[in-house]
Every structure is written in C-alpha cells, then in structure tokens.
C-alpha cells in the first residue's frame, strides 16, 4: 500500500496516543515540588521538602526496604523455579507438557482479585498473613509464569542438537545444564528475573489482602497516600518510582542490545 493520506493521519494519531500514554505520569514532578503541606500545583515557588521527608521518614524508608527484600526474593525464587520448569517442559515436549504449560500460565491471566481471594483464603489457616514469607510466596506464584514465558522464548531458538552433542562428549546432565543450556538462554533468564522483580515491586491487589501492619510494602503505602489524598510525599515517591522505571528500562535496553549482536554471530 502506498503511504496515503489515511496512513499519514493515522501515524499522527498514533503519536498523539503514545504521548497520551506517557505524559500524564509526569504531573507527579511539579506536584512533588510544591512548597505547601497539601497536594497542589506549585505557584512560582518550589521546594524539595517532600523529597526530604520521603528520605527521612522511617515509614517510607522501611517500605522501600521491605519492597526491595520481597521483590528480590520473589525474583530469585521465581527465576529458579520458572527456569527449571521451562527447561523441563522443553525437554519433555509432549501433549501433557503443553497442557501443564497452559495451566502454569493461569496465574498471569486469572483476575488479580480472584488470586488475592485465593491467597487470603489459604494464608489464614497457614498463618502466613502479614508475613514476608506469605508475600514472597504469593508474588512468586504470580511471577513465575513470566519467567516461564521469557525462558521458553529463549529455548525456542536453542538447537537441541547442542544438548545431544554435549552428552555424547561425556558431559553429565548437570554439566550440560550449567555449561551448555544456561549460557545460551541467559537473555531469557535475565528478562524473566527483571519482569518478576517489577511484578512484585509494583503488586498491590494481592498485597492489600494479605498484608496488614508488620509488612507494609511501597505500593501499599502509596495506596494509602492516594486514598488519603493530602500528603504530597506520595508525589515525591511517585517521582522516584518513575525514575527507577526509566533506569530499569534503560538497563534492559542496553542489555538486550548487547545480547542481540552476540546471538547474531
């Protein structure tokens, strides 16, 4: 098709839509710089007091720390279980394994509110409510499918003959896994770990149900701030979160660019 008038207008429309997707979040920046004690747009005067409060408040700092611990543990656990499972499914490759794969993707697509109900229901008798272990386990179950997807995508381009060759040359299963399979699916494993981290770091619905006082993650504190709708510290936290997102995005872009030529060789 020739790029006609329609195509041109559509492209302009698409750019407008894409800007609509990204720009609203930026309003957090001016709001966070307001010198007032309540949420407002700054009128000519700017102040960093809300950032100062964010980084000196015990509550916010402990939430940053707790979210970090939970997201890192969840990412590690989900990456371990998800990668092993993806390799297993890739090895088996039968009708049953495809069924299992479809089943394991369910936590990703089942509405979060139902997942939250399920965890809440089971965590009560198990005594896992409001504990690190409870949150880490729940987030891991939600995040492992992500790892499964990214690692499976990497495995799809891996030549199974290499595995055979390694075994024929006398390597054990474990050596083959460590020296042959893992190095070639590394991009998928890293991507999965990153996605799992973000999922946990940003998770709110399940967290609202299964945490209360002793574990108070960053999204939970932001949720509270948003509901109360008065304290501008929330805006400062939002700015920090946007900055973290952009940094993570840049890192992953650089990593994937570095990996792309390596794969082409």
């Amino acid at each position, binding site marked *: 098709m020739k790029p006609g008038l329609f195509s041109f207008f*559509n492209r302009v429309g698409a750019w407008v839509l894409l800007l609509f997707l990204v720009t*609203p979040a930026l309003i*957090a920046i001016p709001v966070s710089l307001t010198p007032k004690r309540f949420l407002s747009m700054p009128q000519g005067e700017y102040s960093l007091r809300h950032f100062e409060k964010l980084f000196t408040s015990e509550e916010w700092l402990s939430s940053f720390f707790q979210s970090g611990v939970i997201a890192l543990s969840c990412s590690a656990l989900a990456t371990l*279980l998800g990668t*092993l499972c993806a390799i297993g499914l890739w090895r088996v490759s039968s009708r049953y394994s495809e069924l299992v794969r479809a089943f394991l993707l369910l936590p990703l697509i089942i509405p979060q509110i139902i997942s939250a109900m399920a965890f809440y229901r089971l965590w009560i008798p198990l005594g896992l409510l409001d504990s690190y272990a409870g949150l880490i*386990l729940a987030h891991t179950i939600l995040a492992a499918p992500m790892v499964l997807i990214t690692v*499976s995508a990497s495995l*799809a381009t891996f030549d199974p003959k290499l595995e055979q060759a390694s075994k024929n040359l006398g390597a054990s299963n474990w050596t083959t896994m460590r020296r042959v399979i893992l190095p070639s699916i590394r991009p998928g494993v890293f991507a999965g770990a990153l996605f799992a981290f*973000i999922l946990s770091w940003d998770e709110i619905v399940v967290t609202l149900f299964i945490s209360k006082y002793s574990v108070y993650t960053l999204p939970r504190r932001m949720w509270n701030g948003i509901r109360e709708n008065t304290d501008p510290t929330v*805006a400062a936290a939002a700015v920090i979160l946007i900055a973290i997102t952009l940094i993570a995005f840049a890192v992953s872009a650089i990593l994937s660019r570095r990996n792309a030529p390596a794969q082409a060789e």
Partner: protein
Amino acid sequence: MQALNRHIHTGWLIIAPLLLMVVALYLGPILNILWLSVTDPEPGFGNYAKLTEGDALIRIVWTTVRICIITTVFSVIFGYSIAYAMVHCHQRQKTYMLTLLLVSFWISILVRTFAWLMLLGRKGLVNVTLEDIGLVAEPIAFMRNELGVLIGMVHYMIPYAVLPLLVSMQSIDQRVMDASRNLGASGSQTFWRVYLPMTMPGLVASTLLVFILSLGFYVTPAVLGGGKVLMVAEYISVQLLVTLKWGTAAMLAAIMLFGVLAMLWIMSRFMKLSTVFGGAAR
C-alpha cells in the same frame, strides 16, 4: 530410578517444584472458593439465587460488564491505530514508538492512578486549564463517575491491546496488499476486505485479552470511581475485608472465573496463548 525413567521423562523432575507449588498454593484455594460459593453460608445455590433477588448485585455485574465493554472497544481501536502505524513506518520511528509504549507499560499502576487523580479532580490541572482559557465555566466532573474510571482504564489497557495486534500485523506478507492494489482494489477496499480480515486473529486475541484484564481490575475503579462506581472486584474486596461474607464474594468470583476461562478457550482457537503474552512455545 532406571525403571522409572523408562516410563516418565526425567524432565518432569524439574517441572515438579513449580507445578506442585501452583497446585497446592493456588489451584487448591481457588477450588475451595468455588466450593464455598455453593456451601457458604448453607449448602445449595442460595448465593447464585441472590442475583435474581433484588437488583443491587445485578446492577454491580451490569456496571462491570458495561465498563469493560466500553474500555475494550476504545482500547482496541486505539491499539489498532498504534500497531498499524508502528508496522508501517521506518525502523527508527518504530523504535521510538515501541520505547514510548513499553515505558508506559512499565510505569507503576499506582503512579498512573495518582497522576489521574491530580489531573482530573475538580481543581485538577485539566479543569484549571480549561477554565483559564475560558472553555468551560464550571469544572467538569471527571472523577467519582464512570467517565473517570473509563479514562483511567483505557489508558492502562492500550499497551495490552497493542501487543497481540503487533504480533499479528508483523506476520502479514506485504505483497498480498500489493497484489490487491494491482488487481484494481482501492486503498480502502484493500484495507477493509484484505488487511482487516487478515489481522482478525490478532484483533480477537487483543479484544479478549483487554476484556479479561478489565473484568478483574481493582485499583483504578476504586480510586477514580471514588465509591460512586461499584464494580465486581471492589465489591468482592468489601465483602471479604469488611462484611466478611465469603459466600456472595465466592459466587461472584466463580462467575468471573468461568467467564474468563470461557474467553480463554475462545481465544486459544484463534491464537496460541503463549504468543499473546509475547513468548513462544517450541
């Protein structure tokens, strides 16, 4: 062990940890909830009968379905436009577009909801700007109504709508369109009669994906609806955390779950599910 190996592939040994964990800690309680929907507070279909008595519950279900349908229609139309533009432009421009799309995908839902709160309130930036330039005399009510919920939800869902469409459009052979033009079809005929039907699998996948994700959406309706727009997800959370009525909540969850599974089944007729999520099985 050797004897076992002959019957069961060793691969299952490393599948087992995750599989067992999901079955025990996820599938188990979900089945328990389905069971609760017909046993709590008393055995029978009393919970389901509540849907026909009185109109409070039915209204919540209807509000949810209506908002989800409107969200889906807008997200898929906008998503189609973005995906189309991305496939039909130069590589460099496409990279920029993809970057914007993914950045918005990655920004925390809480940050975005907070931003809408600041923008759409009575004294929010949008209303203040509109009043300053004299477009409106009274602030427009964007929040605490369905309009606000819709703005927030469409904004969140657009990237999800784009991704399956992008996969589908990228796999189309451009020469088919050239052939159509050579055979005398006009540009719009080629689009409506050749291009659109060829992207149908992506369109169906994207529609169902957005609809499913909208159904259980909690954060944006709860904040931007401000208690005025009650959807199923928020109602469930109130039932569980405030009034402690598991039966009704379980019934609503069961209906939602079966609806989602039915749609997933339809979706799997059109597209491999793992492709929708950006990965690919072997």
